[in-house]
């Protein structure tokens, strides 16, 4: 089939983990003395991965660190061999696994361009013809005849990117290179990648910037721990990934403790339409229905809640006592409704914590810290985590 650019069939990649001794004779001997088939010393970076990419398609790869994205690109680039399975690529491949990977600090920009071009498979003549375009794209002017160790990191990556795209391959592999460089360089890269798409070239892109990857990709492949968890339309797979990583975040940070005379049995998050959700939009109302059960009747009590960001930093917290809502006693099951008329949070993932304790703060009945992860979409962009209603006026 001629319209397929990349075919990956049942590919697995195993790494053998060495003991702390590293690659020395001692480590080798010690490893031999330990049990022979020690599976804890193996890491499957990819496990039974299969997919195809049609010509002219841009496939975005997403997943947490260690999901196997970079390993997959390395296999496609040919720098590593799969342990199992087969990969087939059609046409010439250029890989941006790392910008300026072939550069030597002591050589000048000019020498490095020729060297990097040759590493990517160009002849001296072919590099010669593209040289001016490379220097122009990289925008480094007279520095081209300086050793690259005197370059700023921005100049370095610009030159690296320029060489790789001027190779003009059929398939371009890009590993998280958009994260480097300043804003104008990133725009330039994105423009260049858009040109690539118009020319019906095939691209595989790794990025942690979900916005960018959603706009540049035709399809998204979602990897986790070496397995494919999703493959399809960008909005759908990215939604799946966001839900997945939110659950991951809250399960990592979740803590629960208390005397359990009263327990918090659950919380429902409702959007403006009254539907249960884990994704809300900035400025909309959010209603939280907090369910509790008082195993033994207790006296005056206080319910509290707080919102933290993904790193667990407190953004906001409040309780019934502060708001002067009196709860003289609790017994049996019940529900407390918390209404946030306008959610003024910046785009991101937030962790909600809830607590119930005695009014004199002496007894902690139950605390659920970082137990609920909610994604916030923001249509407005502003600085910081919180939005403060404001009015600008020119006088």
């Amino acid at each position, binding site marked *: 089939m001629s319209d397929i650019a990349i075919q990956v069939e049942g590919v697995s990649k195993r790494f053998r983990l060495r003991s702390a001794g590293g*690659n*020395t004779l001692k480590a080798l001997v010690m490893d031999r003395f330990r049990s022979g088939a020690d599976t804890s010393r193996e890491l499957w970076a990819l496990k039974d991965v299969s997919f195809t990419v049609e010509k002219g398609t841009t496939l975005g790869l997403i997943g947490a660190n260690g999901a196997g994205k970079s390993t997959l690109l390395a296999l496609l*680039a040919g720098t590593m061999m799969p342990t199992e399975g087969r990969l087939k690529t059609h046409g010439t491949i250029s890989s941006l696994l*790392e910008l300026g*990977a072939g550069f030597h600090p*002591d050589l000048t920009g000019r020498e490095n361009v020729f*060297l990097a071009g*040759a590493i990517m498979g160009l002849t001296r003549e072919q590099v010669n013809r593209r040289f001016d375009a490379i220097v122009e794209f990289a925008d480094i002017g007279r520095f081209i005849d300086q050793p690259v160790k005197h370059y700023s990191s921005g100049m370095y990556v610009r030159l690296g990117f320029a060489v790789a795209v001027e190779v003009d391959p059929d398939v371009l592999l890009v590993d998280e290179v958009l994260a480097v460089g300043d804003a104008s360089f990133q725009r330039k890269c994105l423009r260049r990648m858009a040109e690539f798409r118009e020319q019906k070239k095939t691209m595989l892109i790794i990025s942690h910037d979900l916005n960018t990857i959603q706009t540049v990709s035709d399809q998204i492949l979602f990897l986790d721990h070496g397995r494919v968890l999703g493959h399809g339309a960008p909005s759908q797979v990215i939604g799946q990934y966001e839900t997945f990583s939110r659950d991951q975040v809250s399960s990592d940070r979740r803590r629960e403790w208390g005397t359990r005379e009263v327990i918090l049995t659950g919380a429902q998050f409702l959007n403006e339409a009254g539907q249960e959700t884990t994704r809300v939009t900035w400025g909309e109302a959010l209603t939280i229905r907090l369910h509790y059960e008082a195993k033994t009747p207790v006296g005056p009590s206080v319910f509290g809640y707080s919102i933290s960001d993904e790193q667990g930093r407190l953004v906001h917290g409040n309780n019934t006592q502060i708001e002067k809502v009196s709860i003289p006693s609790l017994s049996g099951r019940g529900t407390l409704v918390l209404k946030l008329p306008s959610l003024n949070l910046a785009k991101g993932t937030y962790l909600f914590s809830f607590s119930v304790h005695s009014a004199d703060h002496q007894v902690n009945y139950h605390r659920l810290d970082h137990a609920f992860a909610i994604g916030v979409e923001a249509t407005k962009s502003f600085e910081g985590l919180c939005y403060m209603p404001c009015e600008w006026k020119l006088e």
Partner: protein
Amino acid sequence: MAGLIKDITAHRDLLSMLVARNIKIRYKESALGFLWTLLGPVFLILIYAFFMKVVMKFPIPMPVLVSGIFVWQYLAMCLGDSSFAIIGNANLVKKACFPRLLLPLSIVLANFVNFLLSLLVMAVYLLIVGPHFGAIAWLPLALITHLALCTGVSLGLCALNVFLRDVQHLTGIFTMAWFFLTPVVYDISMITPITQQHPFLGPLYFMNPMAGILSLYRTALLGSPLPDLSLIAISLLVTTLVFVSGVLIFQKLQPRFADEL
């Protein structure tokens, strides 16, 4: 092997650039630059000349010592550099796809260029001190065998060093032993009496390929008598074995380089 040669010819521009890079960066930012290729052996010669001729009263003619050190220096440079051919380019090996063989090969060739230049200087020295050149026709064979030996050893060492870093430490000790097993600071004629007494020692001695190679150089450049051709043949045979096994070891191990670095 045919596929390998095709791979290398397809990347000959890359190979020549890597060779140029290796030559350039070796002496970058050093005031004397290429002169160090000569100064290294010259100081070695002076040291050995002083200890052997002055202190130990060992009757070694200067041209023999000079040719020995210069020829040995090429192998010694390759042994010293090759351990790092792959691990010193870890980034390149992990991030770019090209025949990995080019990395050690470019080091061997860069050192070869340095060696040829130093041979020129040595030729000038030999013309000045006077002795006639010998059977110069042996020189190409000496150069090719020498190059093949250095390539084979370097390929094997750099590949093994990826998996076992002990290799680079062992290489230093091994180089020292090899130095004295080779007629570098003595002449092959000094061991001829011994090999005549014990006929099995001759072939054994020439199983060190450097023994045959250095004899060829001295025959070509100094007019020293050529040892028995069957002994030279042993050195050539061992060189071929080293070359082939070096290539095979390298090719066998290279798919796993990126995993290990």
